[in-house]
């Protein structure tokens, strides 16, 4: 690099630039936090939804599935599983979840496996509530189609 561009200038860009963009990030974060309530519909986070999230986490569902495109890529996306199987009917989806969770693991040889988690009926209902709430987050229209 040329002599006109000195180490002191490089250092100032580092400290100045780093600090400025960190501040900008904090500012944008505050703005996003302000607008999120309209997009995540947090008024619908019932106790059941919150418990469902805990069941989701304590059984590490994210270790096989993705949720809003994040997680593992071994098993289907679940942020839109309600759209895929619920047909807009919450009770029907909750019913589907009860039977799906009870059926695991499916016996097909060589097929990818989902374990049996031995969850109670209430826990599965909580999971359904959590997945239904998740499916309604405004996520700029992702995924492209219902297959996730």
């Amino acid at each position, binding site marked *: *690099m040329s002599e006109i*561009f*000195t*180490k002191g200038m*490089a*250092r100032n*860009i*580092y400290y100045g*630039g*780093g600090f400025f*963009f*960190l501040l*900008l*990030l904090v500012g*944008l*974060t505050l703005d*996003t936090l302000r*607008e*999120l309530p309209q*997009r*995540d519909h947090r008024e619908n*986070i019932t106790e059941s939804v919150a418990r469902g*999230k*805990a069941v989701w*986490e*304590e*059984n*590490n*569902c*994210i*270790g*096989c599935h*993705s949720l*809003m*495109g*994040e997680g*593992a*890529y*071994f*098993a*289907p*996306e679940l942020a839109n599983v309600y759209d895929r199987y619920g047909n807009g009917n919450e009770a029907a989806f909750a019913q589907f979840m009860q039977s799906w969770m009870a059926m695991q*693991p499916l016996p097909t040889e*060589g*097929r*990818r*496996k989902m*374990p049996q988690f031995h969850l109670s009926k209430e826990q599965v209902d909580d999971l359904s509530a*959590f997945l239904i*709430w*998740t499916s309604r*987050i405004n*996520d*700029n229209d*992702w*995924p*492209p*189609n219902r*297959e*996730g």
Partner: protein
Amino acid sequence: MKFESQRVAKPYFIFALMLFVGQILFGLILGLQYIVGDFLFPYIPFNVARMVHTNLLIVWLLFGFMGASYYLVPEESDTELHSPWLAKATFWVFAAAGVATILGYLLVPYGELAELTMNHLLPTMGREFLEQPTITKIGIVIVCLAFIYNIGMTVLKGRKTVINMVLITGLVGLAVFFLFSFYNPANLVLDKFFWWWVVHLWVEGVWELILGAILAFVLIKVTGVDREVIEKWLYVIIALALISGLIGMGHHYFWIGPGPYWLWLGSIFSALEPVPFFMMVLFAFRVVSQRRHQHGNRVATLWALGTAVMAFLGAGVWGFIHTLAPVNYYTHGSQITAAHGHLAFFGAYAMIVMCIISYAMPIMRGRPQGNPAVAQKLETFAFWTMCISMLGITLALTVAGAWQVALQRLPESGALSFMNTQAKLIPVFWVREAFGLVFATGLVAYLASFFVGQKAAVNTYVVETHATEAAGEFKAQGACCGSCK
């Protein structure tokens, strides 16, 4: 080696490599489970193997960073490490906590582990990469604090070189951003939003400072190029990394709830993120071409150049291909993501740790001019085997990802389901697994390189000799070990 206390780095490096072996073993299990879905089921379900694979990766990289710091900070500061005793103690605490956590994953179902460790008191488990029980996370924080205290005190009492300051800023950032792993609200959007403050701000923020500092250190040592030149490059690289990478975090905010302006901010700033990685390539090759002496440890130079190139490919090129919002809309959470994750983590962080090990380990073993020729030859073979097979894994996953997008995401009607798409990709997953086996061979060769040519080494240098003595001897012969630079 200038100071006796630098030697505490050794157990860190050795343990890091042991964990690396475990990581690859579980990687191969995962790769096979992708094809033979019920392989090892129900003993090791996929999610368990994945946790072990990714957590071992993160922990061995942390051991590597710590070893690197304990080695280079005393030398840069020109003083003994503040407390070698504390460094040894934290090694054992961290190693024990790490092993216990991995055993916990393998021996009890995750749900029971959560209960056992009382996750409900402060729920932090069950999120990707942050699966560790809360008590382990607290342990990590304590270990990091002790480590940073030790390194910080050493810097304070000694020379404050640019490399030292950049490294310690990176390490403090690492610890500070890890604190976001304790924030886990019931609102999934907020949870995800701040989850990235750990993950993205690590790999595309503060870890880049650590990477830059270690790379600059090794380059000074093996080339003898003037510090002033190297420091200027280092500042420019990390400045660009932060300027692009902080707002570049927006490339994760496209589809998880935040508003549409992130589509623009994330795309534009993250599109600039390859620039610092490209600068790193220029930097490494420029410095090596201007070298003042030919260091006897040639393979360390190869690792330094290789790290820059592979980091640019993995983070820069494979990051760029899916970072623009209109592309990411289709590739988000597909095998393309996995392709990028592998090449970036390997090229940038696994390789920089192997780079500093390649430079420092021979010195700590009393070989200031590097390992004997046979050992370096084997290590060079291992270098190429691992790099090429990792490129093979990446290309296979890229093909899988593109195909997945074409079958499952692009069609507006008649798209294949996730499971049916995966079934179609099986031939490509075999190719990935085959390259994985080649990678494992490369790793075995790498480990073997530590044990070959022992006799030659003993003849040339007296093992366990005082490094400074050996360095003096070599200077008399016109060679230089770099330690005095």
